């Protein structure tokens, strides 16, 4: 297993740990994505993110990788802090694993700065999702009272 | 070593649960039969190569004689079917021209061509039937006898296609109704298996010669060990000119025809 894969593996496992209940055991251990839809989303997204961290940190790529994971976490009952904590989980993993492996590459490519930038982007994304949630909540209420509103609008009582 | 009552109980008891019991039975029995072979006759000696020489001239002496055929077929419970298609035969006669199509000349054909030639399985050195059998139901024993395990034959008839001598028959029907009198010393066959001449290996085991040879008053059939230089068959083959059927196929027949 090469260094990147090892890092990814740890990242997935530790992120999964922050999930509720027994889900954690299933999410991290079940390698078969077929049996574990949420875990699979996690793994795919984290893999994409890790690739970007090593590469150009392309904003749109990161955004599309963040979307599924944050979108899921936003409705998984995570607080905003919790939802982006998975990014900060990466730092200790790198510290643990990087010195043993090809650290030259790692040190140059991924520094805390990049991770911090990612955290900010994740937080933004999370806020976006929360805002969207709030918006669709409002829309729902509005739809429920649609007729009354229109009656009121049309025939001022 | 003898198997005692206790041993047998042990075999059937739980003591051998761990060991595969069947294997044990076999192992024990093997030991005893080895002893048996030391005491009585050897199953078949390694240095033997059974073979046969048929003196065609002698064979012709008595016109229409089929004593050997009858002897063989009654000894081996060979069924007699009237329908040619379903025939089973271990030993039979064919016109010379069909048996030795290459050995005839235009001049000899007239006389020799229709003379009957006695046919049996050639018990080849390198039998094609053995190679093709997918279940090892037919094989050449170390004494040269090509034999068939009727218990194992699946009836695919590949051996019949492979045999260049047409020596093999198939039981298209249940043979039993077609056997007039059963010889209790030899099993009958069941439908769906292939059979052929076995050089009377059951008689050889008892130290007897083949039934056909024994029954021939003219002594036209000589049977013996081809490996033994002073055997009767070797002596005969030394003194008279003999041919094999289709030697060019490389099968090495052990049946020789003295012409």
């Amino acid at each position, binding site marked *: 297993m090469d260094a990147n894969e090892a890092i990814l593996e740890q990242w997935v496992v530790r992120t999964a740990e922050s999930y509720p*209940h*027994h889900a954690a055991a299933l999410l991290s251990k079940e390698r078969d994505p077929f049996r574990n839809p949420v875990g699979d989303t996690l793994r795919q997204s984290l893999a994409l993110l890790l690739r970007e961290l090593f590469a150009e940190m392309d904003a749109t790529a990161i955004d599309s990788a963040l979307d599924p994971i944050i979108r899921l976490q936003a409705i998984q009952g995570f607080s905003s802090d919790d939802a982006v904590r998975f990014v900060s989980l990466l730092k200790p993993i790198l510290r643990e694993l990087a010195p043993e492996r090809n650290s030259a590459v790692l040190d140059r490519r991924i520094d805390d700065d990049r991770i911090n930038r990612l955290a900010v982007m994740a937080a933004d994304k999370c806020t976006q999702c929360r805002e969207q949630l709030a918006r669709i909540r409002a829309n729902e209420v509005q*739809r429920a009272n649609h007729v009354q509103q229109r009656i009121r609008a049309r025939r001022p009582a | 070593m003898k198997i005692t009552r206790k041993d047998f109980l042990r075999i059937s008891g739980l003591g051998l649960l761990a060991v595969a019991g069947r294997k044990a039975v076999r192992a024990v029995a093997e030991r005893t039969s080895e002893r048996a072979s030391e005491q009585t006759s050897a199953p078949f000696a390694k240095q033997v190569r059974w073979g046969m020489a048929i003196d065609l001239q002698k064979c012709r002496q008595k016109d229409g004689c089929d004593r050997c055929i009858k002897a063989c077929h009654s000894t081996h419970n060979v069924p007699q079917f009237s329908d040619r298609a379903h025939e089973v035969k271990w030993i039979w006669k064919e016109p010379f021209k069909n048996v030795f199509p290459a050995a005839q000349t235009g001049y000899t054909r007239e006389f020799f061509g229709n003379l009957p030639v006695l046919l049996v399985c050639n018990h080849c050195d390198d039998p094609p039937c053995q190679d093709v059998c997918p279940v090892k139901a037919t094989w050449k024993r170390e004494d040269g006898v090509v034999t068939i395990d009727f218990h194992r034959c699946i009836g695919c008839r590949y051996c019949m296609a492979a045999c260049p001598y047409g020596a093999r028959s198939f039981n298209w029907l249940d043979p039993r109704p077609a056997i007039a009198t059963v010889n209790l010393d030899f099993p009958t066959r069941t439908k769906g298996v292939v059979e052929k001449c076995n050089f009377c290996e059951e008689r050889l085991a008892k130290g007897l010669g083949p039934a056909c040879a024994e029954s021939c008053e003219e002594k036209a059939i000589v049977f013996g060990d081809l490996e033994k230089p002073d055997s009767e068959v070797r002596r005969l083959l030394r003194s008279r000119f003999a041919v094999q059927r289709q030697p060019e196929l490389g099968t090495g027949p052990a049946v020789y025809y003295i012409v």
Partner: protein
Amino acid sequence: MPDKLLAIEQKRPEGDWRDAKVEFRKGTICYSAAPKNITYLSLPNPREWQPFDADWKLPPNWKEIILKGMKERLRKYRSFRLFMEICVRCGACADKCHFYVGSGDPKNMPVLRAELMRSVYRRYFTLTGRLFRALVGARELTEDVIKEWFYYFYQCTECRRCSVFCPYGIDTAEITMMGRELLDLIGCNINWVMEPAANCFRTGNHLGVQPHAFQDSIQFAADEAKEITGLPIEVPINRKGAEILFVMPSADYFGTPHYYTLLGYLMLFHEIGLDYTVSAFASEGGNFGLFSSHELMKRLNAKIYEEAKRLRVKWILGGECGHMWRVFHQYMDTMNGPADFLEPPVSPITGTHFENARSTRAVHICEFTADLIHHGKLRLDPRRNDRWNVTYHDSCNPSRAMGLLEEPRYILKNACRNFHEMPENTIREQTFCCGSGAGLGTDENLEMRLRGGFPRANAVKHVREKHGVNLLACICAIDKATLPTLMEYWVPGVEVAGVHELLGNALVMTGEKERTTDLRGEPLVREEATRE
């Protein structure tokens, strides 16, 4: 790497599901019922509490109540006892639940949801359970178990999808219903079920709309239909002697997109000249009693036949609604019948005898309309729906408790030209729930709803990407309320509509003015030139 995984395993063993405790978090649970609603319905143990409180203020003899309630129900419902006893835990149901697929929480596997109650059943009602306890999967009834029940029985939409796949037909909905009944006994119920139920009990509908407001809304809809078509559309209310009583879910005259469906009905009825009436008393077809207890369901349902009898109608026509139809189809006649004061339904337009409704005497609007179309009684111009690329969501109850699958499709295929099915394992009897049924469609539960709706949304996304689908048609009021939200989050760009909205759009009415807008008030796009 494997050793790292191992380390995690040690820290957090896979464990036994029976030990797990539930964490209540806002956004994923429904709030408790307000005491006033419970009191109004004369149900036991009203009190102020919330699920995330540590102390649920259970009555002192709560355990006794629960066990007594279980015992009673084990004697009254064969399904309950059977389903407690014959599950072999083969796991075929596991990934059939939309909540499991969407949340990954293993206790959302139907088998485990049922085991939450089975474990208690074994402990108190079986010999082996009393003797061997944990060895045979029995566990003590504790407050934590009650909390777990509350969490997971209000995280099941009783959609019955698992029951389709179960080799013994074990229906988690039955178990959830029993669980909720038992919880009701100790006053642990949710407001989003109890409030509509109390409203419905009092005013006749979930929203608590009083007769004058009801009339207002209906009149408003009639006016709007008039505006769109230019025809004098009238809606009789509480009219005695009409042939047909029309019952719909109250959302139809209150929210969107339900409201457009109502416009569709009204136009249809006008066009065929139906002799019908709506009722301000039976102004709700939906029945939140179904989500609480059989008894409450019966109490709320009683008004339908009562009103039909009072108005001396011949039979009942029911609008587009999911659980309303589960009650109409599987419970109403048994609970409040026989409906011998009504007549076996016959379509006044086509003369078709609705043989399948001979006893209950209630006909689904889709059956009624499909029959009209089949007999050529309606003139339809499907081109008016050309802006829509339609797919159809089978609502759980009509599909898995009735088998109403072809009728709505027949209407849709006649009313619009672009129709695409979702993948085959997500429609018809295998349809995925919207994630908000059975009283879970509330705002405080939004995040859990979005999780539960994920599989449905995913199938829609598939046809959206493949065929450009932009409209999800359905025949359920809860769907119409919650699918738009689900779509907004997971598949932006897909709207939701009732089948009869599309029919209303396509319906060419005698004497109508040329339509300039569709029922939503949006300009009618004519694509004839490009299409033909």
